[in-house]
């Protein structure tokens, strides 16, 4: 399947990544090549094959429901690009 420029543009929006015109052109042609390559998988018969999303036979790992120490607030907020009191600051969302 060929991947078109407008598909890449749509996917870039879903991924929340700004692309310049030049990037969009270059990445579209590279992604087309990669998608072409992975299309190889269409050759295989996968009827009745169960998908593997996790390799270990581990299910429902539980721990005791006990209080523990959480991350240090100051150390955690120290990395924030914008801090407001004890919160992460972001651009205004509601007008």
């Amino acid at each position: 399947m060929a991947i078109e420029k407008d598909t890449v543009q749509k996917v870039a929006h879903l991924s929340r990544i700004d692309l310049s015109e030049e990037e969009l052109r270059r990445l579209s042609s590279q992604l087309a090549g990669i998608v072409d390559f992975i299309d190889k998988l269409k050759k295989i018969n996968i009827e009745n094959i169960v998908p593997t999303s996790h390799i270990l036979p581990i299910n429902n790992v539980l721990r005791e429901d006990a209080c523990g120490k959480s991350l240090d607030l100051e150390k955690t907020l120290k990395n924030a690009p914008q801090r407001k009191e004890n919160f992460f600051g972001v651009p205004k969302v509601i007008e």
Partner: protein
Amino acid sequence: MPTSDLNTKTVVQLRSSLVSGDIRCSDIITSLEEKARRTEAEVKAYVRFDGLKASIYAPQDDKPLSGIPVSVKDNICTEGENTECCSKVLAGFQPPYDATVIKKLREAGAVILGTKTNMDEFAFGSSTENSCFGPSHNPWDLDRVVGGSSGGSAAAVASDEAIIALGSDTGGSIRQPASFCGVVGLKPTYGRVSRYGLIAFASSLDQIGPITKDVGDCALCMNFISGRDPHDSTCAEIEVPDYTKSLGEDIKGVKAAIPKEYFVEGLDPQVKSILYEAINKLKGLGVDIASVSLPHTEYAVPVYYIIATAEASSNLSRFDGVQYGLRAEDKEQGAGNRLVSMYKKTRGEGFGDEAKRRVLLGTFSLSHGYYDAYYLRALKVRTLIKNDFGAVFGDYDCIITPTSPSVAFRIGEKSNDPLKMYLSDIYTISANLAGIPAISVPCGFTKEGLPVGLQILAKPFDESTLFKIAYAYEQSTPWHKMKAKI
């Protein structure tokens, strides 16, 4: 013991000199610092290098790794020290906590170096050229790549700027650079080592593992970093054996399989003949060798690039300019949602080319209309690849392959062709898809003097077999004693 060459020694050698009182921890640090100051300008194994930032705790205490410096890849959290995944988007990030592997190593007495090792941005790459700090240079030939993505860790160990190092392996990122740099690298079984504090790339594939000067150090390091962690629910509750007990065990009668799909077109002829010599060596040590088939081998790379990028596109959504790292915003207030435009600008400016490609590809294969055709199909083919290994391990103890189809390539040689770069992981990717452990050990040099790696794969949680075979091979060959002239 002369203290000027302590940087060239193994953990096992250093511990014995520390215990006998011949040397002190500070002697090791001094020797490493001096070496790094001499060669780092050429090798660039570390990022933001200005000394190694060793903080020595209680030098007199006598724990199993007391006084041993450990170098750490830039995607493993070390409290209060920069951990940036070699990405602009994480610039300046200093984690508020230690990864579990770091905590365990500190508890064993190790000295964690604050200066981190270079890597491909978010571990996306096979050459360390995708680092926002620029590439590392191979100690065996400075014009060549170190492999990747744990290239800085491998180069640091190979150039004796590190004693041992930690890396992470999602599709070969420990083994391939270990092979390119002539050192030992292990990807443990999925679930053997906790990933808490490893900045996630592809959560169904990632594992942390050691890069070392020999097999003995690798086994020793695994004794301390393995085991259950309540912070990582994928980390298995399976007993950790003393891996060093496997060293020196007889390998007579061990059954090894050679998959014919790994010795076909695309394999460098010199690598091929060096591999056959290594296989003959193993035969001489009593290993029974037989040819087998892993019929779905050719699908491993496409399956990997769907699953790994899908998981990465989800994992990388956290880099959005809110909690850490870079934030980029338009100064003038335009129309539309300012929060969304902040996300887009931050990620557009913060991610390098390969990160963008992978997030886009992953989002594509997970998106409406493509999910069944790509992502779900890849998960099913993953089952077939896993079953191939299961069938072989019914009859054999291990599988032997080259680690990489080539030796270290030239810097810049593949950087404009992502697909060509992806194919350099062709022999390492399957182990991640199947969740099995695999080790790379040096097995010779090409006539240009570049190292070649031998890969051994075993059943899940059977690292002991890997160490047993790798150690027997290593001890009967001179390769691990060869040093790059730098």
